[in-house]
């Protein structure tokens, strides 16, 4: 697992010993998704609905912190099986936050697949071209604040 500093996003990479098609399946198939989407009893997805086409809606719900119910939803923006999956991300626990975008890039080579996750603050293609993302701005401002203290 590694993290890269992107200009404007959280980026994570992991190498999985499986074909990209198999991983793509685990990402988009609701039955499989709820089997791995969770973390050490702190939260666990229990239900997923998915209309897998560009513009189609997806929704995932489960049990989170202090047994509270959570729902996260969004829309598929790009589906290029099995190389790319991109969707918007709207969790119900952050109502006023900007819509963020989650993207999975899958690159298969010699039986291994490099999975790159990008979570960015861009809401539209236009904003991607014309503005830097908010995480980068935050990083700059944060550096400023730390310097000042």
């Amino acid at each position: 697992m590694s993290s890269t500093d992107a200009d404007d996003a959280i980026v994570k990479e992991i190498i999985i010993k499986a074909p990209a098609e198999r991983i793509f399946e685990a990402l988009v198939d609701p039955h499989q998704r709820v089997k791995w989407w969770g973390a050490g009893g702190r939260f666990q997805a229990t239900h997923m609905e998915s209309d897998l086409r560009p513009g189609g809606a997806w929704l995932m719900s489960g049990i989170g912190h202090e047994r509270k119910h959570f729902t996260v939803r969004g829309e598929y923006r790009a589906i290029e099986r099995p190389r790319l999956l991109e969707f918007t991300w709207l969790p119900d626990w952050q109502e006023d936050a900007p819509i963020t975008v989650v993207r999975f890039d899958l690159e298969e080579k010699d039986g291994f697949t490099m999975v790159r996750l990008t979570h960015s603050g861009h809401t539209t293609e236009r904003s991607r071209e014309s503005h830097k993302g908010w995480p980068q701005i935050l990083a700059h401002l944060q550096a400023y604040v730390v310097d000042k203290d």
Partner: protein
Amino acid sequence: MVTIIMRKRQNRIFKAIADPTRREILGLLRGGPYTVGEIARNFHTSRPAISKHLRLLRGAGLVVTRKKGAANICELNGKPLRAVNEWLRDYAAFWDENLRNLKHFVEENQ
């Protein structure tokens, strides 16, 4: 994932920084204090529009204003951004965990 709880205050901060003009204002104020008029001169938008942006930034605690004679001096206060920074850090940990889960699930269920 619900450890990533967004509180009202954080929501205000996110809203404040979601707008490109407001982010530019914050960027400008990194260079030092400016009066409202000086800020407005850096933008093509009208002064009332800039004042509105500044109100939102003040509401989020990201900008503080003080009077100096007839002018209002605006200063950056980056401290509230810490909360957002923590939010980003939580997400980074969240994706780490989920990718590891994905790896285990796929490698064990071929």
